């Protein structure tokens, strides 16, 4: 019996085995030094990003839906007006990255929980990571390449589309 005990699970002082230590496949032992601490980093990230996202998204909803004309104010010039300010560019960029990484890690957890077949799990995660990468890259490029003051071929500002501040430039 003692020959089967995992040496790492034996208490050094008394030489008493931890409960069930002889019956557990060594690969499930918590004392095993894992190759990386990725899962622990992911766990911490969910809490840190989650707390940040509460602030980021609540302010986003407040500014876009609860003040001014609410849902009716949202159009091209509203977005242009916001992204003319670097603070809102940074705000939306941070929100995009944190929300996508938080959501992707949550979906990864759910796929790991419910997709029991190895190939199904691998496929679902491949689709998930690909979609997340596309959305993050697309969103980032949109924020950085956005042109608020659109002009026609003659170089005049497009009326009714360009936000107020374009007229001053």
């Amino acid at each position, binding site marked *: 019996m003692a020959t089967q005990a995992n040496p790492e699970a034996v208490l050094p002082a008394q030489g008493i085995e931890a409960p069930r230590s002889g019956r557990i496949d060594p690969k499930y032992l918590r004392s095993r030094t894992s190759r990386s601490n990725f899962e622990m980093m992911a766990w911490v990230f969910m*809490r840190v990003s*989650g*707390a940040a*996202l*509460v602030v980021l*998204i*609540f302010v986003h*909803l407040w500014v876009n*839906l*609860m003040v001014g*004309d*609410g*849902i*009716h104010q*949202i*159009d*091209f*010039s509203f*977005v*242009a007006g916001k992204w003319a300010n670097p603070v809102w560019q940074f705000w939306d960029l941070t929100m*995009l990255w944190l*929300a*996508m990484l938080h*959501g*992707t890690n*949550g*979906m990864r957890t*759910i796929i790991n929980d419910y997709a029991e077949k190895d190939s199904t799990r691998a496929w679902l995660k491949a689709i998930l990571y690909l*979609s997340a990468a596309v*959305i993050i890259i*697309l*969103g980032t*490029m*949109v924020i950085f*390449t*956005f042109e608020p003051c*659109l002009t026609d071929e003659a170089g005049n500002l*497009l009326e009714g*589309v360009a936000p107020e501040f374009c007229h001053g430039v």
Partner: protein
Amino acid sequence: MTQTESETKSASGGRGTLYKGREGMWSWVGHRITGVGIFFFLLVHVLDTSLVRVSPEAYNAVIGAYKHPIMIIGEIGLVGGIVFHAFNGIRIILVDFWKKGTRYHRQMLWGVLIVWAVTMIGFTVRHLMLFLEGWEGF
């Protein structure tokens, strides 16, 4: 009695455990469902916002769909999911990091639901008022 039997018994008839049965489990179910819903909305929302790079007309046309009465109801549902996920997420952080978090996790869930209800009453009233003020009919 094995540990599993005692957990099952207490989960069905007694106080439950931190994760199995009752408040702990249902808040977990709610957190997952709202999380998945928010994730898929987020994919769509980045795509619709990306239309600002196509043309103002394309963006305005698609974002205009969010101003339809049916979508207004959908937005109240979406914000309801976000607000629950947010407040329950804070509760999860407290369960993990606050010394007395596990002892008060049930009370904190009721707190989450009360603050959620208050927030949602405020949001729903304001969102509907602003919608009706600017609505030009079907």
